[in-house]
């Protein structure tokens, strides 16, 4: 793993890196290096599998993070490649030419976060949501409670229990779940 990270440093540049476990490391790189780096990892290293692709909304920083988890199934280790992109632009290069199932990940991220992957085959095609008329729901500024109150208002006179008060009674002042 150390040797591969060193080669990534030398050839692509690493903004930040972190070793979570012996079998899991993470490197943050610049957006322009995503496709070249992932191509190199797939073609020239044992990290041949794309295990998943995820997005994280860092609303306070005005950025999205895309995390590509690559796995070396023979060496039994994984490498997370993370990239921050502008929240305003919300566009990233597609990797579906490297891994066919990336189409589904990119389709879902497009729907749930509003990040566009130009050239990816199912951009704009509904994956889970149909007829969605609000901002992409996995964005941090999407207010689930406000949406629910607007679309599914509570019936007048309906009782409900504040979970904070209920859990407080069960846990007690000590704050332990067990004696």
């Amino acid at each position, binding site marked *: 793993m150390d040797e591969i990270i060193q080669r990534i440093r030398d050839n692509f540049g690493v903004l930040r890196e972190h070793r*979570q476990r012996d*079998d899991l490391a993470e490197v943050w790189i610049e957006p322009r290096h995503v496709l070249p780096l992932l191509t190199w990892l797939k073609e020239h290293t044992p990290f041949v*599998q794309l*295990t*998943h692709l995820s997005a994280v909304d860092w609303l306070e920083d005005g950025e999205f993070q895309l995390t590509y988890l690559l796995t070396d199934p023979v060496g039994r280790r994984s490498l997370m490649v993370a990239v921050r992109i502008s929240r305003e632009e919300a566009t990233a290069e597609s990797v579906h030419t490297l891994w066919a199932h990336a189409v589904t990940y990119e389709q879902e991220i497009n729907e749930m976060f509003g990040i566009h992957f130009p050239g990816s085959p199912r951009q704009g095609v509904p994956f889970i949501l*149909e007829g969605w008329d609000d901002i992409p729901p996995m964005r941090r500024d999407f207010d689930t409670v406000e949406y629910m109150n607007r679309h599914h208002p509570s019936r007048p006179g309906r009782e409900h229990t504040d979970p904070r008060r209920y859990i407080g009674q069960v846990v007690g002042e000590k704050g332990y*779940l067990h004696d």
Partner: protein
Amino acid sequence: MTEQTALERRVQLWFGPQHPGITGNMAVQAWLEGDTLTSGVTHVGYLHRGFEKLMERRKFIQSFPIVCRICVPEPDTNEWLLAASIEELSGLDKEVPEKARWIRTLFLEMSRLSSMLMVLGGHVGAMGLGTAPNWLITLRDYILDRFEELTGARVYHMYVTYGGVRRDLPEGFAERLEANLQEIESKLPLVDNVIFDSAVFRKRAIGVGVVPEEWVDELGLTGPIVRAMGIARDTRTDYPYEKYGELDIEPMTTTGSDIFARAWMRRLEIAQSIDLIRQILAKMPTEGPYSAKLPNMLTWTIPAGETYVRAEASRGEMGYYVVTDGSDKIRRVHVRGPSYVHGVTLLERLMPGTNIADLSALMVSLQVCPPEIER
């Protein structure tokens, strides 16, 4: 026949979302020429409840009732993955007691066993065999009896928690579980006879739905689908977690990579699970705490970090990508279920050329669990 007339002969057929041959609520939009599929698209969205979003708005402890609903036949892998990822990011993993780790391993293997019994039954049920599913669901019920005794619930257990498990094994639990295992074992030869010796099953399963080996890395395939082509990959042995590293376990494999091979893999792994449960019960310490002392769950904050934790569900690799930001809630969680690839990309690739009568058998052989696709 001109191209235009060929197109005119194409029939579009919606298979699901409510159909006995569909695994859960999902749909396949299929196009046929005659009774042969020319292409198909998987449609999900019927079970979406926004679990990942819900977890961003709840304290860490409040996510357990959410995650178990991600897969009905096998909810426990989700409970463990949530606990393990948060424990790793908080440092609590160093305090999980020895006995709790053994109980968790037992719990996870019981979960795999109950799931495989149900799925093997569902598998052949979708192919018109009616007897074996009834037997196998009954055998699964014995394991659900033990889950009910252990956790108070038959399906959604909410038993694993941060730092350990919620309660110790009841007195005499191991003996009652052993009696259940013997009962299950006694019926398995009958199951073998009506499934794997059945001429109908063999005719419809052998050589059908073959997954080529070169797709494994290209699509990130895992679990019984991969082991059914002779590749010995198993998260329990490749990335040992809890007490799997202390058990005598080798990945089971077979060859053929067709519907028959995947069903046979499940049968092999049922036997393996029974063996592992016995090993766990023999090695598990009888004394000791079953949970670490937990911080106040209403005020618990976790340092910023990211991790990916994986486990072997009965369908393949299940993983949780979790991001924390130093607050009292999960910043982001991505549930990576094996069905995400197996039920969409792989299934869509396998459909062209498949006979419509084989579509159900193909889908169940991939063991697609729709809620883990949409979360």
